[in-house]
């Protein structure tokens, strides 16, 4: 943490932590979408272990923030709703990783 003029600690990295991503279930969803290109709802539900309602609710929040998008893709001959991180979502996740790393580094020094 950077020193402030009065000798205190600058809490900027902590303040910058994205609370939307910081929630454990949403962090789980973001991390799983970050390592793949796209997945459907069922796949995410199986991977995260969240219930249908819980996952829906978190996805709605992430979608409203512009972190994820739903795209219709053809799987075989059928259109299928696939979820993916947007560029904004990927950038936000990377930033979150950096901030958290910084917070822990500062805590140890």
């Amino acid at each position, binding site marked *: 943490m950077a020193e402030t003029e009065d000798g205190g600690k600058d809490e900027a990295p902590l303040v910058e932590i994205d609370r939307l991503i910081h929630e454990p279930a949403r962090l789980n969803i973001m991390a799983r979408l970050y390592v*793949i290109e796209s*997945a*459907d*709802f069922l*796949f995410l539900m*199986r991977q995260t272990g969240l219930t*249908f309602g819980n996952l829906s609710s978190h996805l709605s929040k992430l979608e409203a923030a512009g972190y994820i998008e739903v795209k219709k893709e053809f799987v075989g001959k059928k259109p299928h709703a696939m979820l993916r991180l947007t560029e904004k979502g990927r950038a936000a996740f990377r930033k979150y990783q950096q901030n958290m790393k910084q917070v822990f580094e500062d805590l140890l020094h």
Partner: protein
Amino acid sequence: MSEKINLKELERKAWTSYFEDGLWDIFMGLLMLTGGIRALTDNVLFTLGFVPAVLVVVVGKRFITTPRIGHVKFGRSRKVKQRRLIAIISISVIATFVLLLLPLSGLALPKISISPIIAVWIAVIFGLLAYYMDFRRLYLYGLLFAMSEVLWGQFDKPVGSITQTISGIAILLIGLFVLVRFLRKYPLPAEMRSYGGD
């Protein structure tokens, strides 16, 4: 969330969830089993053993696996791995044909037993497939396959084909066990609307 977040491990877990269904094990088991029986019985009909094996994978993935764990598209690094995998399979198929056709070519070949070479070849190919597919049971199957090939060369037909048949049965049983575990772990979801609607 108690689990530690390791992105590489998350990606690997997503990928390997597609091998939790045991269908590739059943595929390998059926191939080895029918190959062994075909050699034991000299019944050409068993050469067609690959047909049910392929059907198990294609139909099983569509009607068993996907409805239970859903669809996923993997990222660039996994696609690169998949391309390498396809290259390995293509090269191995061509090289195997060349190896098998060599004795028929009329070339003056040194009189050596070809089975250890084929065994090493099989072990290497299975090892590469296991590595690129992140499918660790393939290491074991490669060893079993290679071992039956060595025995085939050392003790003549019955021992090799019996070993192959037994290995096939063992792999098939592993596959069935994994499939049952998969079906229990991932029952068909109750009527579920997809997020975003289909």
